[in-house]
């Protein structure tokens, strides 16, 4: 069963996190709380995200907006990798001639003469 933590519990578990900072990250949609029994709660993956956000802020001297941007880019790289995998699967299903042409075109785009 997924464990959910209250605001106070999250703040206690993550170094460098304050209630104000937690609410700022929530407003920036970096983490998504789930409402339970009238309270905002956070699942374990969200706590991990908050931990990374605070580490980014501390280690790289980023403000909350900067840390949120880095996390968003990490998410998007993950999403793009998925898209690329989907595309690669689709290409892999094509006949060899089509795959060869795509590879040639890709090589031409990457290394123009």
């Amino acid at each position: 069963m997924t464990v959910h933590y209250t605001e106070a519990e999250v703040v206690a578990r993550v170094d460098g996190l304050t209630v104000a900072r937690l609410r700022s990250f929530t407003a920036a949609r970096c983490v998504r709380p789930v409402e339970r029994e009238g309270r905002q709660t956070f699942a374990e993956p969200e706590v991990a995200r908050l931990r990374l956000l605070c580490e980014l802020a501390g280690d790289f001297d980023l403000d909350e907006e900067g840390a949120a941007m880095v996390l968003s880019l990490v998410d998007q790289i993950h999403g793009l990798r998925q898209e690329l995998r989907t595309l690669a699967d689709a290409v892999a299903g094509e006949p060899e001639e089509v795959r060869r042409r795509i590879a040639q075109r890709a090589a031409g785009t990457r290394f123009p003469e």
Partner: protein
Amino acid sequence: MAKRDYYDVLGVTRGASDDEIKRAYRQKAKALHPDRNKDNPASEAQFKEVSEAYDALKDPQKKAAYDRFGHAAFENGGGGFHRGGGNPHDFASAFSDVFDDLFGDFMGQRSRAGQRASRGSDLRYNLRLSLEEAYRGRQATITVPSSVACDVCNGTGAEGGAEPIACPTCAGMGKVRAQQGFFTVERTCPTCSGRGQIIKNPCTSCAGAGRVRKDRTLSVNIPAGVETGTRIRLAGEGEAGLRGGPSGDLYIFIEVEQHPIFERDGQNLYCRIPVSITTAALGGEIEAPTLDGGRTRVKVPAGVQSGKQLRLRSKGMPALRGTGAGDLYIELAVETPVNLSQRQKELLREFEGEARDNHPEGQDFFSRVKSFWEGVKGA
């Protein structure tokens, strides 16, 4: 049949210089010109093929595109560029919004939500003109199949012109977020297809699109001096935007047809005119056509040789949106008489008997041939 490589068509290598390409084109064009090949119907197609290849390779931008993508560089078709809207069949457009996705969060906007009222697609229209029309310019009436704002809903897509409401699934963001373990991945909202808004009661006339298909007739001013590849932009005459968004633009791509008499190279025109051997030898006047439909008398100097070009200033193509014009080059082709009468033959033999240093080119050539043979023997 597969289209031939442009370099093969002109008979040059891929690394050929501009001059080599131009020289190869002129040689091929001369040899294949329909006037010289009236008995060979295939020559016209070959002539067009050569002209098309030269059109592509003489322009540095087109040449670079051809070198990189081959014939695919010019295969735009007649559809449209589909800027903004995104063509689901276009491989590249699948990633066209990558940068919007990456940085949209930090630029004060959500890219998908920004598509509520999106700009209409640009349209392309290919217009063929004769060389005379390109010379004079013309008012062209064209019919463009395109989308226009729906009259019934005023382009909103909603019944009775009502405003769309924010999509309840994505709260107007156009995207929904899904948790994948540690990561949060955004997906296009399945309810509103990324528009961020939905229409509760779609307009029955346009099925909620806010625009309908309709042929539009436009009058377009084609300026004098256009050439193949000239692009004329008519702002706002493309497809209507979605749900009240701005219209796209209409691009008219000009294609100028080959002319049976005149050949064009940039602003200059070339015309090959046959002259009799007597006119070539004694000098005289010939009548040369001009592209404006007129004629002009041209003085032929005595002793002129075949291939000699005479320049008529400012009788070429007018400058596009500028002043002045190119030149018209008359290329003389000395014609050997045929079907000679007995008397003509006698006169020519008599002329031959009297000939003294009358053929300097021939004499020079044969003296060079003699030296060549002597050199071969001595080697």
